[in-house]
């Protein structure tokens, strides 16, 4: 049940049907790796008060998360993108923390789904 809340099962199933299970396995790995990297960069952008980079990185996470059915995470990333666009990162720290823990849930869930037959 947990898995269904974090990842939209319909999106994920369609992806598997359209692209093939092997490809989706590879995609999940890439997504997890890349998103982890992007979150690290978000922390760096926050530390550097670089709101443009902050918005762009959040935008990137928003986009790929939606593709994999991680709709909640995508929404969270969208909020971060909007924050970045205001040029004011003072409230961004807690938001980023939530995104970060949200991503861990997504990652776990995707790994479960990936290992399903």
């Amino acid at each position, binding site marked *: 049940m947990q898995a269904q809340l974090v990842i939209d099962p319909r999106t994920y199933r369609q992806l598997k049907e*359209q692209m093939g299970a092997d490809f989706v396995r590879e995609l999940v790995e890439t997504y997890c790796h*890349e998103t982890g990297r992007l979150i690290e960069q978000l922390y760096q952008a926050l530390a550097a008060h670089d709101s443009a*980079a902050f918005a762009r990185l959040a935008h990137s996470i928003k986009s790929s998360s939606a593709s994999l059915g991680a709709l909640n995470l995508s929404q969270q990333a969208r909020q971060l993108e909007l924050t970045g666009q205001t040029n004011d990162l003072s409230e961004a720290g807690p938001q980023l923390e939530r995104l970060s823990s949200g991503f861990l849930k997504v990652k776990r869930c995707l790994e479960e789904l990936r290992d399903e037959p």
Partner: protein
Amino acid sequence: MSHNTSPGRLLVVDDNKVNRLLLGRGLEQQGHRVAFAENGRQALDMLAHNNFDLILLDIQMPEMDGYQVLEKLQEKLEWRDIPVIVTSALEELDSVVRCIEMGAEDYLTKPVNPVLLRARIGAGLEKKRLRDQQRELVRRFATAEVAQDLEESGFALGGRFVEATVMFSDIRGFTTLAEAQSPADTIDLLNTYYTLMFEAISGQGGVVNQMVGDGLMAIFGAPLLLPRHAEQAVRAALEMIEMIDLFNLDQAATSRPLIHIGIGIASGTVIAGYTGTQRRATYTCVGDTVNLAARLEAYTKIAGQSILIDESTRQSLSAAIQTSDLGLAQVTGKVQEVRIYAVPTGQKA
């Protein structure tokens, strides 16, 4: 939408690797060859060294974003016609509008729906194919200069009304001429004749759009706008006669037959555009002006003149070109008589 679009060489530009993989996979499944760039700068590098039929472009990217790429694409002639499909999030529609204003062809929202992807790519590739074909046709029928001008001023080849001057020209008594010499000599003669005529016509900004046997039709003022199309058409006609005279000197020196041509010119509104099928199309003009030019050309034999023009062509001429009023004439196909003018040859306009 067809399900077997011919494969194309596509460039996917996106900073997110997951998006690149997804788009790439979808496109490869549809039979296309796909190359990837992570940002705008990389994309331009790849464009400089490879040919692509279509670009899928993300907007927000580090180093160089989608807008900057679109700007660069517009600057370079050979890139301008590559269709760009912008890939964006649903909430970015404002950005999409800006991209389309900057020359993008279409857009897709991410996550990309495979059916829409197929349809949009198919339409984009088809447009590219038609544009390539148009360019090729213009190249074939116009000189490099005219083709270049056209590309720079942008193609405006759809059906439209234009003010233009139409010219018809053919060789008098060509059939008799052809019977008197070998087929090889006839083709040789025609090739020389066409080369000379093309030079005179395109030298004045005209475009030869039809060649049938020994006759040709040329348009001045479309598809390339010419402010003084009537004057230029008449100047081209004078040069054509001059070239034929020179050619005849050559022919006489080698005891070969001389040729004579008749030219009819009319100006006015024409309907211009591409006609034909997808496989074979040509830029052409239709309308009364075209018919009148053809009739005037035929009338040169009756009038015993080399160049005949209509009233509206004459009115547009500068004082540098002399004409003589031949009065009203009953031209075939016209209910009312039309006033015609001869342009005396040999004048240095």
